[in-house]
């Protein structure tokens, strides 16, 4: 095995580190929009018995059983056909949002089903309307019990956002690939990138557990 030479990577470390921001941005945007969609899907599932519920369930089944990469490809190739021109960045965010919504709806649905019936009754007795019941009673409760699952999914999305590099987006992996193809030190740069992802993930774990502890103290 010829020697590893990390020097060309370290001279470009700042450029690489900038990719961390893009990675977090992609995952963050997709997570927030996915969560909004997921709340809609979960409420649909929770409120209705018939067609709407089945539709919401089918959405999750369909998108959790197909690869995110193929979904992004579908968005990437098919939106322009429909006359919608979006940048690679946006098509990745759209694809990941649709994918995240499916998983998050499953998580939220399970969380909402676990809210004790008494909560619904109390909300009814207090004269809260449907919207208030969801926003002030059910979702906060479900959010608290579901926090670990949601945080875990965000971590999965950070890893998943590496797919953006395939579409030419300059996220962490994309920038690593750039550096690799200009310096021919692909293995070295990928090792450093892997380390950066691991550090990012450990940092996020720390932030989430801190957030959780503060939240528990406040309640």
């Amino acid at each position: 095995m010829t020697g590893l030479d990390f020097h060309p990577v370290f001279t470009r470390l700042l450029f690489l580190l900038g990719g961390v921001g893009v990675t977090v941005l992609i995952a963050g945007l997709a997570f927030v929009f996915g969560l909004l969609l997921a709340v809609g899907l979960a409420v649909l599932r929770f409120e209705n018995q018939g067609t709407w519920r089945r539709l919401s369930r089918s959405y999750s089944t369909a998108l959790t059983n197909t690869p995110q990469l193929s979904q992004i490809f579908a968005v990437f190739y098919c939106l322009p056909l429909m006359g919608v021109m979006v940048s690679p960045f946006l098509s990745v965010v759209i694809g990941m949002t649709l994918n995240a919504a499916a998983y998050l709806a499953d998580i939220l649905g399970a969380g909402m089903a676990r809210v004790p019936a008494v909560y619904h009754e109390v909300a009814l007795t207090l004269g809260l309307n449907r919207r208030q019941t969801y926003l002030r009673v059910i979702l906060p409760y479900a959010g608290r019990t579901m926090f670990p699952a949601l945080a875990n999914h965000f971590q999965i999305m950070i890893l998943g956002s590496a797919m953006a590099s395939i579409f030419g987006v300059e996220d962490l992996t994309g920038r690593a690939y750039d550096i690799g193809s200009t310096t021919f030190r692909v293995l070295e740069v990928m090792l450093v990138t892997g380390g950066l992802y691991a550090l990012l993930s450990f940092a996020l774990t720390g932030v989430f557990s801190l957030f959780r502890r503060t939240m528990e103290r406040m309640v």
Partner: protein
Amino acid sequence: MIAFSHYDIALLFQAMVRTVELSLGGGVLGIAGAIILTALRLSDMRGMLPLRILAVVYVQTIRRIPFIVTLYIVFFCAGMMGLDVSATVVAIGSIGLIAAAYLCEILHGGVKTVPVEQVEAALVLNLPLWARWRYVIGPQAMSAVVPPAIGYLVLFIKDTALASQIGVVELSQAGVILSNRGLPSAQVFCMVLLLYFAISYPLTCLSRLLEKRIAVH
């Protein structure tokens, strides 16, 4: 209005077989690796301590690195070491490496759910090692291991789509090839997504069924 010729269908079919190969190969390697890693993590011999730490570090780190980065690392490592292996082998190897870490976490967690008293009782009864695992720990850990393990296998069938990035022509790559050939993208990608669904959905159902079965017991 179906634009596929039988050549295109053949390509899709071959690609689907490749996806199944990747999943099966990676799965088998992953299970084998997970058993070894878990054995290392559970071993309580003093001399094994460094290996134990190594196993824990491996499991904790590799699950925090995107699959595509691991894939590149293994791919270029193999190249630098002068190994003459096909991209498919590299992909199966990387899937195995990652699957081993995830499955080890599931297996280790499952074994830990078995109450300590059970293991102690088995020890008091002087059961040999294999009997402890075969009759005491195994059956009790099964319920905590099998459903999530199958759930995870379903997850990584979809990760095999990334193998396209090192040049393996699997299902998602076949979709890109057909789309670039000028076939209508919408039809091509619907087809690809449907084929993935056909592989993944039965396994999802199986995992759900097992979960229910085990919950009943």
